């Protein structure tokens, strides 16, 4: 089988601003693929194009061997994608469990049922308990989102992304704003996610990157400079110079 996700010759410009330039990349089944690159490299724009939040100017995105570049993002969820956002993007006036309910419903066919109360669906309840317990948020299920700490909200973003039984999850800087202990907790959680879920992650924290990545793609000024396993990226002289200022990775 081919790669789960294939991006080929992807371009995105905003008027005169050319943000993505002929980006090519592949994400294999079960991989933990991390995208790194300095601010403004176009990482989030790449995510938005993969997820359908933005339409690419040119180029193709294949998911499970089918072109999806012009599909609305809600259709991609049904095909098995989900994502988190760089800035918390939650339903602040709803409770934690209501947030999770919505995320679970995203991939259910009975989301169009107007006549049966949501809470009577057993699988919704089971899935909710499962994800909330797994991530240690079950005790907080009745809290409103805006009562949670920032780190907990970050966590809830990830919980939502995992609630729709996805095959590919896009995590946009999941650890930004987390405390060191939350970050290490997060890293452990990521390692526990079963391998039938593929992860594509944008991450700045190099410790996190090298502890979870199978493969790293470096994005710089909208170009995918390099893709490879962590060791080869760590050793690449050019990368060290332009991105890490040299030597930063050898420690």
């Amino acid at each position, binding site marked *: 089988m081919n790669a789960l996700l294939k991006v080929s010759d992807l371009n995105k410009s905003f008027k005169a601003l050319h943000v993505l330039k002929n980006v090519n990349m592949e994400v294999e089944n079960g991989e933990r693929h991390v995208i790194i690159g300095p601010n403004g490299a176009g990482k989030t724009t790449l995510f938005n194009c993969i997820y359908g939040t933005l339409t690419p100017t040119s180029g193709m995105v294949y998911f499970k061997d089918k072109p999806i570049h012009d599909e*609305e993002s809600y259709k991609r969820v049904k095909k098995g994608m989900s994502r988190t956002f760089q800035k918390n993007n*939650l339903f602040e006036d709803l409770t934690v469990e209501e947030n999770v309910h919505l995320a679970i419903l995203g991939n259910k066919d009975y989301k169009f049922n*107007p006549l*049966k*109360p949501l809470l009577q669906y057993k699988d919704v309840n089971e899935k909710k308990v499962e994800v909330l317990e797994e991530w240690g948020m079950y005790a907080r299920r009745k809290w409103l989102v805006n009562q949670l700490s920032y780190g907990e909200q970050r966590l809830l973003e990830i919980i939502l992304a995992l609630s*729709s039984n996805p095959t590919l999850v896009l995590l946009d800087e999941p650890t930004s704003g987390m405390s060191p202990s939350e970050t290490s907790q997060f890293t452990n959680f990521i390692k526990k996610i079963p391998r039938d879920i593929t992860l594509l992650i944008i991450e700045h924290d190099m410790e996190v990157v090298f502890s979870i990545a199978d493969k790293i793609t470096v994005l710089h000024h909208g170009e995918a400079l390099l893709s490879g396993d962590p060791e080869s990226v760590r050793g690449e002289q050019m990368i060290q110079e332009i991105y890490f200022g040299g030597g930063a990775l050898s420690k």
Partner: protein
Amino acid sequence: MKRIILSTIGLMAAVLFIPVVASPYVIYLSTEVLIMAIFAMSLGLIMGFGGMPSLGHSALFGLGAYTVVALSQYVSNVYVLLGAALILTLIFSLITGFIAMRNTGIFFLMVTLAFTQVLYLISSGMNLWGGADGMSTMVRANFGFGNIASSTGLFYMIGVFFVLSYFLLKVYTSSPMGKILKGVMENESRMTALGFNPKIFKTAAYTLAGGMAGIAGALYIYKNQFVSPELFSVHTAAEAMIMVFIGGYGTIFGPALGAGAFVFIENYVSSFTDRWSLILGLIFIAIVMLKRGGIIHLLSLAWNSIVRMRKKMFSERKRNVVEVKEEEEMVNERITKSQ
């Protein structure tokens, strides 16, 4: 579901009970309340659960009413008349909803307002159904067990529709469709990312609310036997909006309470002044400026404080009992010591 059924039964009991105790005049007014309650609850769905402040809702009320009047010239069967009103308003709101849903916020408001005004001008310009003067008709409902002619009978008939609407809205807002609607109101773009097409859920709610407003308009004819372009006016739409706010935004039953308060206040005020419109406008302004919730919020606030007070009293009593016991023990001790 249990709670929904219980509250529906409670509501049914209340509706059954009113004619037993109320004077004929109050029954007459309450019938109007029930009609407006159906109308306001349907608007409450799209405003309070869908975040769509529509000024086009009177278009559907009026359309339902006009359908009954126009068809009643040829048929008298209540199933046909109500069914036609329902189907027509469902279709109309589906189409207009589809158009209006291309826009959000202020554009949505303007587009819905324009729909209402178009129907208003067409109905007052056309000679067909009385033009600007309106037209009266003579319809009696017969569901298969005799004509409903008495005012109590009419009250019960409309009461059935009211309770049904309440039940339907309760179920709808607790179903996946309803929960998703609320999510779309809270954060539309996030819902897209979670796998929902927001337009479908908004249009569905808009259509359901439209059909319900249409039924309310049709029932209005059974009570008033008269239709005029006034029903389409922005005034009617604005009145429904104020009912939603007086009663309680974001709840199902709140708008029904608001309809009750509105009809009775209007009736009372109109009995001694012609300046109802002025007073209504001032109520609008006051509601916005005071930033208080609706009646239902005040009621639940009162209820909560009663519950808290009772809890407090109960714990005080318990403490008293403990103190008394302790005293008794002390006395007993003293007695045994002295012995």
